[in-house]
């Protein structure tokens, strides 16, 4: 099992367990868990409606790719811990991480 924690817009934290070997992005998991993520573009790093902050576990994540970096640079409210959930795969790299939802 992969364990992550999500902090919603009110600051409330909830753990999520995801079976290993599942081919999903963090965005898809958040949507499936009924978090208010629009994910308008469907995972192409185009809309930034799945913008999250990484509160814990950022070092283990894969680096920001070009498409994600370009999109994050355009956002008025991104900061050092910003990532796009659609570009993060649900695997060992996110195990134990804490993500904060960002208002979009």
């Amino acid at each position, binding site marked *: 099992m992969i364990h992550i924690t999500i902090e919603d817009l009110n600051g409330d934290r909830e753990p999520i367990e995801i079976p290993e070997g599942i081919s999903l992005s963090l965005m898809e998991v958040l949507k499936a868990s009924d978090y208010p993520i629009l994910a308008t*573009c469907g995972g*192409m790093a185009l809309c*930034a409606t799945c913008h999250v902050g990484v509160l814990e576990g950022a070092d283990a994540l894969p680096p920001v790719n070009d498409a994600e970096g370009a999109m994050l640079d355009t*956002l*008025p*409210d991104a900061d050092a811990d910003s990532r796009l959930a659609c570009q993060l795969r649900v695997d060992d790299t996110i195990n134990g991480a804490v993500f904060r939802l960002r208002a979009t």
Partner: protein
Amino acid sequence: MITTDICIIGAGPVGLFAVFEAGLLKMRCHLIDALPQVGGQLSEIYPQKPIYDIPGFPDIKAQDLVDNLMEQIAPFHPSFTLGERVESLERQADGSFHITTNEQTTVHCQVVVIAGGLGCFEPRKPDIAGLEEFEGKGVAYMVKNPELFRDRRVVLAGGGDSALDWTVFLANIAQEVTLIHRSDSFRGAPDSAEKVFELAKEGRINLILQSNITSISGNGHLQEITIAAKDKTVTKLATDHLIPLFGLTPKLGPIADWGLQIDKAAIQVDTTDYSTNVERIYAIGDINTYPGKLKLILCGFHEAALMCQSAFKYVYPSQKLSFKYTTVNGIPTF
């Protein structure tokens, strides 16, 4: 005024295929798209990407699919208004509609089909106090005519490619150019970033990093912006123009005000015919939602076919619809 049977808003793959299904039922279509070319996100965003789930095509490049669709619908002579955004919809006494675009193009149609995909890409607006008050009075979200900024004081905000490129461009035109970016580095376009740092070094632009604009003020026209740095220092800067460049974000746009039932930026439809809650308005493709919705091109094609069977009654109220196969009847062109 353009007169047609069905006005399709959105000329992506699903909007295009709707022309074919409508044509089989002798219904004429006019398409409107905010983009300057047909194809929607396929042509605009990923024209060279292969798509693997179009039935009958083991793989097909996005642009090739669009080109094929244009060939497929050519016998039905669709007409197009491209590069214009639908602004308003007006119901006529007989139930038909007048649709007007931002360029004042007007279409009279019996049925409206919204095939808007992700929606319209609109500028992302930063959270700055007073921003909307000065839109068109010093605040602009895109540079349409750079000459407007000649010999003026201009502040640009943002860290993406367009913020960098316009800073470099306007440095030669404006009296004073300031670029404000929340971070101290630029991840995209290293060439443009280097140029911006060079211009700053030469004193030809002001580069203010690790800072955000918090508020703006003026007297009928923008006069001053307030900048807060990460180290909490607050400064004020006099300017004539502010251009926030924070990319584009897809929005429903004016469609959101048409009384349609909307759930999470998608239009709710009845899956028997993909009709909305407003009579004679249908929504197909990525812009609609219903239980089990999949945002797939092939699902949009299916939705287009069922929609046309239902829309027929508004275009030919006195005729009975009989379903025909193209293998039996061919393509009844007009």
